């Protein structure tokens, strides 16, 4: 598979009055053409910051400290605002959760979609109009022809979200960055949107970075998965490998903490004690150690895996190995993990 996007050594810094924080720690990954890369993590893991940095959309107090992102022979992180403008929308499109902020309230939605299509795909006004109508139809907006003349506030939140998705996809980008694209949507609508994204991948060979906290969405759609925690990639592998043989204790706990309706009900949900550290800039050892069921020394505390220990907090003792700096290792081809003890469990 040809590599479309090659990200290396990405470090993003956020400045505040209380000191600077480095929120992504030497992130590196590739996206192949036609590949769906899933990035999964909880809030504060750095998954959204990574995508914002690639698009040059970091908030004012954020800056790229180091790194490169090769896309079509150019480094996205080194481009000027104007050069990025050209790529954004045409080659790379980003859709995210907050749709209200991305539609202009004073123009009808039809005009906004047509505008985007004319700029990037089809300059002819009439043709662009009919492409826009067909897109509204495709995403399930009732009476698409009339809907073109309506303003954003006349649609429901879910419809606005889908209109934004249509606006992005109608430009047939090479790379779609979808950051929690369906989190605000109902599950039956989510299923429709994800199908459109999969269809476009097949039709156009579009690549997708799918960023979400929803493990199910990753399992159903991704080819390869990065698991992020506290600004680091903790594990990465092919989707089947990751779900069937998770190596990192965090990944294991994350998989076990999601309620699965396909499962028998009696199983108690695994919860991870504590919460994501707020400032991890100067943490030296494993960033997950204080919440890890295995970091206490002799492996799992009396049961079978991160699963069993439930909500009991780790004793507080952290073994010396886990206090060392953890490198991303490759214990099996294509399967990376940032845990020195991962093969011993």
């Amino acid at each position: 598979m040809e590599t479309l996007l090659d990200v290396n050594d990405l470090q993003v810094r956020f400045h505040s009055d209380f000191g600077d924080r480095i929120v992504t720690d030497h992130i590196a990954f590739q996206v192949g053409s036609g590949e769906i890369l899933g990035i999964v993590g909880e809030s504060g893991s750095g998954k959204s910051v990574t995508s914002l940095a690639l698009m040059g959309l970091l908030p004012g107090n954020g800056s790229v400290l180091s790194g490169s992102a090769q896309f079509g022979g150019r480094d996205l992180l080194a481009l000027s605002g104007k050069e990025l403008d050209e790529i954004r929308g045409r080659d790379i499109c980003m859709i995210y959760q907050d749709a209200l902020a991305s539609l202009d309230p004073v123009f009808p939605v039809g005009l906004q979609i047509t505008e985007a299509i004319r700029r990037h795909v089809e300059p002819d006004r009439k043709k662009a109009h009919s492409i826009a109508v067909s897109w509204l139809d495709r995403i399930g907006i009732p009476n698409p022809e009339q809907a073109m003349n309506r303003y954003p506030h006349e649609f429901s939140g879910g419809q606005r979200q889908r209109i934004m998705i249509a606006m992005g996809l109608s430009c047939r980008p090479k790379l779609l960055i979808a950051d929690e694209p369906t989190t605000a949507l109902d599950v039956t609508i989510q299923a429709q949107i994800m199908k459109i994204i999969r269809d476009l991948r097949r039709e156009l060979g579009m690549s997708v970075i799918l960023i979400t906290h929803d493990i199910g969405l990753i399992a159903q759609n991704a080819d390869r998965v990065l698991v992020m925690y506290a600004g680091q990639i903790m594990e990465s592998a092919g989707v089947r490998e990751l779900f069937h043989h998770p190596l990192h204790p965090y990944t294991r706990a994350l998989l076990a903490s999601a309620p699965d309706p396909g499962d028998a009900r009696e199983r108690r949900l695994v919860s991870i004690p504590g919460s994501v550290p707020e400032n991890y800039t100067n943490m030296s050892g494993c960033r997950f150690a204080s919440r890890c069921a295995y970091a206490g020394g002799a492996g799992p505390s009396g049961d079978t895996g991160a699963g069993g220990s439930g909500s009991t907090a780790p004793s507080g003792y952290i073994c010396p190995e886990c206090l060392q700096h953890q490198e991303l290792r490759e214990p099996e081809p294509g399967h990376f993990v940032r845990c020195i003890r991962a093969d011993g469990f």
Partner: protein
Amino acid sequence: MQDSHILLSVRDLTKHYPAEGNGFFHRNNEFIHAVDHVSFDLREGETLGLVGESGCGKSTTGRLVVGMEKPDGGSILYEGQELAGMSRKELSSIRTLLQMIFQDSYQSLNPRKRVLDILADPMVFHGIVSRADAPRRVGELLQLVGLPADAADRYPHEFSGGQRQRISIARALSLNPRLIVCDEPVSALDVSIQAQILNLMKDLQDRLGVAYLFIAHGLGAVHYISDRIAVMYLGEIVELGEGQEVFRHPLHPYAQALIGAVPAADPDRRPDDASILKGEAGDAVHVGEGCRFAARCPFAADQCLREHPVLTDFGNGHLAACWRAARGHECEPGI
């Protein structure tokens, strides 16, 4: 569970809102059928999950039950007392027994009050403890929901989302309620924290015997915590039954599509695209004569468009409102 005492009995509960553009100058007599003839029982110590997509009326149902909205029809019997026609003042006397937890713990906790006061004020107001005794009781509550004792002196913004939801739970429990209506209590939380809160709610139910009306759109959480589940669509309950039964053998095509659309955390169980439901739930204004789901239903027949299906028992308390199910077509999951 079958024989236990029925705590809450809701019958034909109805709430209609005037439709948009239906004001003083534009009287078109159109209404949003937010909640339409909804009936269910809730037993002591039981969890009834209420699921459905946005606009199906599940939250309105919860708000009607606790008296935050006045119903337009139907009855809400709580321990034999009719709540539906009660005045605010009358409601206040039973308020301690019916509590509510919301999704947004940031907005539902007063940012200017310390946790001590957030928890103590309602108890003192309702005469459950004296002001002098309150700190001791607050300490017990904090321990009950797994928060450190020093949390009492801090303000809501000093806590994470999961911890704030624990404070909300402590506040709801402080009045010793028999029923807590939980409106999307874990939707805003990360999965690992979600699991903490769901487990806490289960443990508290085991210890205190409190019943939950658990309203959520996240089917995983509802499945995990609920004994029975009701599925709502455009203001109506279309299916109701034991949780396992509803998830394993959904009878109503909408319930099948809804459950089938939840992405399973298993890359080997990818559903085929043919089962994806088309279109979206229309508005609850023009609901028509027949089944409200008929327009999206892959099995809709003439009868479905003409006649309104009634909630029918298909055995073991598993109810569904579907003509097709009534005709004896056992609908397989994942149509």
